[in-house]
């Protein structure tokens, strides 16, 4: 009898981790694409996801549109927002990586306060959907978890095939690996940058509504998804789309376990420590071709 409950608990933990992890991969997808191609360090990533979430929330609650039909407007709006971001960041000077980090840090503050004015400080949630018991998995599963899991899988695999199987993907990957060499090979790097921002924005717009189904929206809640996106992207390494799923699942498992064993209040600290650990131990993840201190050629 006791053994049974233990088994049940582990299955539930596994299902939750998988769902959470897929959610993280989805959150990271837009960040990873933009960072990989353009070296832009977008600290306003989480705020953009929130923006998508709010758009979906108000379309859903206000206009009564089905949740799935809120995806296209959100994606379109965020695509536009990403292009605006691109227009701003184009003017940033060297050192580009650090300066985009600081500029988007400022943009995050602007967006937070703008959202506070427009959407007020109320916590909002689209709703968890139905929850039911799946005999085959021996665990409770919700509508939202299934939607998130499928969307994430679909989006990640689409990006993966875009990168691996199409001509555009080849050009994007070449740009990721070496901007200068790509330019010399006749690839229009500025177009690639634009495409990366556009696609990344659309992916952020896809993540937003699902975020609003999973987590409460609050104008100041953006820094957490930003950190999660960075963690998953560093873990995966630049240009490795499938790695995002793996990284998401691993992080989801660690976080689920943290919540389970320590309580939800320690989760943010664990993510922060994972991020610091990854920055120290996996410098080649995000910064493969960067010079490392004390190691000049």
């Amino acid at each position, binding site marked *: 009898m006791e053994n049974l409950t233990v088994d049940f608990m582990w299955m539930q933990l596994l299902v939750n981790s998988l769902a959470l992890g897929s959610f993280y991969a989805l959150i990271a997808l837009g960040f990873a694409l933009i960072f990989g191609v353009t070296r832009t360090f977008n600290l306003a990533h989480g705020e953009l996801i929130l923006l998508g979430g709010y758009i979906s929330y108000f379309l859903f609650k206000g206009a009564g549109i089905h949740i799935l039909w809120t995806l296209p407007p959100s994606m379109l709006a965020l695509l536009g927002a990403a292009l605006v971001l691109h227009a701003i960041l184009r003017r940033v000077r060297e050192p580009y990586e650090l300066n985009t980090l600081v500029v988007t840090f400022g943009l995050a503050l602007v967006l937070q306060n703008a959202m506070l004015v427009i959407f007020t400080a109320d916590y909002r949630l689209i709703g968890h959907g139905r929850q039911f018991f799946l005999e085959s998995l021996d665990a409770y599963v919700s509508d939202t978890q299934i939607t998130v899991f499928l969307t994430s899988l679909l989006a990640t695999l689409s990006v993966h095939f875009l990168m691996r199987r199409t001509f555009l993907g080849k050009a994007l990957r070449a740009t990721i690996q070496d901007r200068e060499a790509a330019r010399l090979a006749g690839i229009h790097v500025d177009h690639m940058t634009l495409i990366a921002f556009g696609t990344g924005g659309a992916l952020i717009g896809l993540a937003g509504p699902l975020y609003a189904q999973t987590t409460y929206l609050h104008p100041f809640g953006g820094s957490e998804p930003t950190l999660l996106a960075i963690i998953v992207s560093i873990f995966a390494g630049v240009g490795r789309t499938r790695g995002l799923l793996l990284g998401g699942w691993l992080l989801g498992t660690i976080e689920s376990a943290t919540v389970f064993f320590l309580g939800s209040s320690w989760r943010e600290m664990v993510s922060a420590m994972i991020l610091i650990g990854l920055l120290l131990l996996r410098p080649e993840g995000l910064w493969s071709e960067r010079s490392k201190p*004390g*190691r*000049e050629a």
Partner: protein
Amino acid sequence: MAAEEAHIVLSMENVGVMFDSQPVLKGIDLAVEEQTIVSIIGPNGAGKTTLFNVICGHVRPSVGRVFYRGREITRKQPHEICHAGISRTFQIPRPFPEMTALENVQMGIWFGKEAHADRGSEAPPTAADLLEIAGLTHKGQTRAKELTLSEQRRLEVARALGTRPRLLLLDEIAAGLSPSAIRQAVELVRNLREHGLTLLIIDHFLNLTARVSDRLIALDNGEIIVEGKPSEVLNSPSVIASYLGERSPEPRMAETEGV
């Protein structure tokens, strides 16, 4: 230490360096005598600059030991090695870009070797003196990033001299310079030895190294393949095979490119 080793300034014992599990230097043994000019030659990627980085503490060797005047300096930090009396220039010049030429040299004087008891009562050089040696007197107030490549190289030499080194490491001093600038460089190098310095030079420009060096060390694939008198090394079959054979046009290119 035996008396015959007393005039050895720098020695390395079995030094090896690995980058990402790739060996960059393997089993390097060398000894540099006081007041000599030793040149290190070898094709790109042979490990010449890494050797300098190991000596100056910018890269920690995976194995082996480095000695300066009988004292081990293997795990010392760059500034400690500088204070001991070793200074260097870089392959791509690295002056402090926002500082003026004069300020750059002054930095060397301020932060270099502090006590120089072994020099007796000789007054330390001033920044103006050093700029004059480097032929940059008229550029003293120019910001370093606005100088030409050749001027930046000479500025780096002046800054390095400001630290009052006994051993000076020059990385690619002649690359990208015009023939007349190279003649100036040769003069400068000879002058420095007259003043009691020991020099270790990396250069692709074989005419320069052959003219001024007392000894040549040929590196290839991270190993010393030949060392000895310039004429011996340059005529050695393995050097010709690994370096001159496939890269003979390079010394000529060094003459034509640049300023």
